[in-house]
């Protein structure tokens, strides 16, 4: 099971829990499981967040990135620029 | 609306064009003569992107009406190079990376040439004040000032031969 860290704001949907154990072989699968557990959270994670796997920021939007069994995921606010 | 027939010289060539009395010289140069190096950045004489010379003097073409050009000699950046020889300012701007987006560059070059024609060895402060009418948002002016200084050196070295 991967360890998922959510930002304080996402925790609104998870009754305040910011660190969760979640199954799923890809980022997309992890998001789907989180959305199943906390309905409505999914769209904020897939559209409105970037994700780092084991400290490495992933290309934005890559839901197929593999998630290892002991992986640590961070969902972050989307960083843009100007 | 009736249009005025204007005759003048641009970059050494005799030209003529038609313009309404309320057309700016900026628009006439761009739309009637195709001299698109002269840019509109503000239309109110505050940014210098439309800088030209009129009988040798620096002017904002957005602040002149096209018929005012009658009988005058106008200079734009298109006339800066001499055949296949770039003007020293053009060379130092290229070599010194004194431009980024390039939109202000034609106006800056026109203003810098007027400065160096009048004051061949300007100080840094004199260059800054001479170019104070040309807004640049990309470079912070640093490399522009250096390029003008370098061009002055080149021109003076050439002139003293």
């Amino acid at each position, binding site marked *: 099971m991967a360890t998922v*860290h959510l930002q304080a704001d996402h925790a609104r949907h998870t009754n305040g829990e910011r660190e969760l154990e979640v199954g799923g072989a890809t980022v997309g699968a992890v998001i789907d499981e989180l959305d199943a557990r906390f309905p409505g959270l999914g769209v904020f994670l897939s559209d*409105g967040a970037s994700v780092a796997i084991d400290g490495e920021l992933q290309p934005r939007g890559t839901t197929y990135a593999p998630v290892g069994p002991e992986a640590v995921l961070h969902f972050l*606010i989307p960083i843009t620029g100007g | 609306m009736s249009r005025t027939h204007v005759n003048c010289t641009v970059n050494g060539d005799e030209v003529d064009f038609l313009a309404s009395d309320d057309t700016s010289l900026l628009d006439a140069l761009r739309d009637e003569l195709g001299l698109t190096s002269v840019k509109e*950045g503000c239309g109110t004489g505050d940014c210098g992107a439309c800088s030209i010379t009129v009988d040798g003097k620096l002017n904002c073409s957005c602040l002149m009406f096209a018929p005012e050009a009658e009988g005058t000699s106008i200079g734009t950046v298109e006339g800066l190079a001499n055949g296949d020889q770039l003007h020293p300012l053009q060379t130092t701007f290229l070599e010194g990376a004194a431009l980024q987006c390039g939109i202000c560059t034609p106006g800056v070059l026109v203003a810098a040439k007027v400065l160096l024609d009048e004051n061949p060895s300007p100080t*840094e402060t004199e260059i800054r*004040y001479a170019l104070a009418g040309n807004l640049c*948002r990309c470079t912070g002016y640093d490399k522009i000032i250096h390029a003008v200084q370098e061009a002055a050196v080149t021109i003076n070295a050439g002139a003293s031969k």
Partner: protein
Amino acid sequence: MTAVENPPKKYKYVGTRPVRHDGLEKVTGKARFAADLSLTGQLRGVMVRSPHAHARIKSIDTSAAEAMPGVKSVTTGADFPDIDPAAPIYDESINVIARDEVLYHGHVVAAVAATTLSEARAAAAAVKVEYDVLEPILTIEGALADGATISNKSTRTLFLGQDDETNLASVAPFGRGDVEAGFADADVIVERFFTTKAVHQGYIEPHACVVDVGQDGKASIWASSQGHFAVRSKTADILGWGTDKIKVTPAEIGGGFGGKTTIYLEPIAVKLSQKASRPVKMVMTREEVLRATGPAPAAEIAIKVGAKNDGELTTIQSTMKYSNGSAKGYAAMLGAMSTASYRFPNLDINTMGTVDNTSKSAAYRAPSAPQAAFAVESCIDEIAKTLGMDPIEIRLQNAVVEGDITAMGAPHPKIGFIETMQAIKDSEHYNSPVPEGAGRGFGTGFWFNIGEQSSATVNLNEDGTATVITGSPDIGGSRASMALMAAETLGLDPMRITPIIADTESVGFTDITEGSRATFATGMAVTNACLELIDQMKQRAAMMRGVEADQVEWVDGAAIVDGQDPLTIAEITGQAKQTGGPLTSTASLNAAGAGPSFAAHLADVAVDEETGVVTILRYTAAQDAGTAIHPSYVEGQMQGGSAQGIGWALNEEYIYSDDGVMENASFLDYRMPVASDLPMLETIIVEVPNPSHPYGVRGVGETGIVPPINTLANAIHSATGVRMTDLPMSPPNILKAITLQKASNEQK
């Protein structure tokens, strides 16, 4: 100049300063910007804009306008499809043209195309719009007040998942540790309230486009934009058209800085052109640019920082409120990033984004960071001075390094914050005495930078020269950097490489040039395409020499087979037809691993206490570029960002009337720095290579604008003892602060 961590010069072309390939056309006036282009038979398009900051549109009557001489088409919001408010394009689609509500003074309600500009303007003035004027919300405070008028009825608070109309577009807290305990334990606490005003990116080229919709319903667009693929997709989404019906060619762009990452003109020009079956050219006036495009958000930041006597920064608590203008944005959340420079074990940052009836804010170079860094770095400066610590020392002690966790939760990758500050510490400027009567200030900033999608095609010509084709509009000299990275990879002189930026039909999809991503991500795509070309050339060389491909090595731009003469690129391309055909390669990616770029600035200022005028005597900027591909253009980004930050700090601001009308909508009154306002801007390029990029690149475009405000505020404090907490630090504001300080000193 480079500083610590300078890798040995191992590159032949990367790090050199060739004349940029597109330079000649820019110094001879031949470069074509969007407003320089014209199509036969084109019409001129003019917008009809709301005279009210907030109103309901009761009716629009275009009949008089349509009957006027030269008018060929007219459009209103009724011509545009309704879009679901939850769709990402929704806010931009409303911003392009209002439907039933106008949200700011200057909001487009209709547009007219006519055969001449003056005819179009006359017709635009003849469009009759009836409004029900509503109360405008003009400030953050006003937006959040109890019972406040709803400024944009589509706004819902992001992430709250509730459905009430509100002016609060986003609430995003970030936290770790225990701030109460942290403050209880702190030896020094600084608590302040900072405010900043909206400022404009100030690009000298107004937005412009030329559009031609043919009778086949296909639109060709020439646009001034930071991202022509985004112009295509946004236009398609706003109009409900297929992507294949729109081709966008990027014109040269006269400055963007983030303000040209959104869309204003093209969907309207397309609609006008379609209805008239004629090309349409639309160019904004400067007044329109200032009134109705982008600015960077105004902000209100309450902040409290706690430290120990030994200089450890232990606790930070802040509420950061940013105005997004007329529609929601990410401004506030991004502000939290500026706390990510220091370890702060106890952190509680609340960010709030509001919506009001001022123009919709747009990105501006490191969006939201300058405002937040103003607050954070000013407080650290106060703490340092209270503790009698050197301002660089206290930051070195607390600076983040690789592995430290940011407020956003993920660890920093390899970064060069310490090295960059050390570069200032080692600089000639820092080690020279402060001029008599002047004050010295130090400040820092950074931007995370982004990766995103890029494509590149590299073609080798028959004579061994190369063409590098990308889709990243060049807003700062990136074309030259693409050529240098290709040159280095292939082993080919960069002056034998032609870098071009191709239209949406001629190169693979490429995201907007923003987030300091072009040299990083597009450079990666270029490099990958070149590496694949080398594989191809090794195969051809193997064929030419009668060996297996794995016996061929690529060294210094040539194929080497043991014991035989090397085959140069030109020799290989000269035989391309005989060995299998043209040599060309395309690479594309969704880049990861963008490296943050940190900066540290130092300023000496003199403050005239009778006029409030601040003169910058000396200014030095150090910034981590990872690897400077073309050092002149890296310096250019540092200097340009510094100048913009200086303008933001000392003079620029949007001034609004009570009706929400911008009162200083011209370059005369919206006063940006001119050449005589600034000294030379000294630069120090620090190189702590980014391990995720083949050449170690970190994007540099944005970071430079973050330190100047706080650096100057700290310098002004050193010079006068006055702590400025409100921007701009313009002469009247400084004078007021000095007067207040003197008065309160006298009372003591």
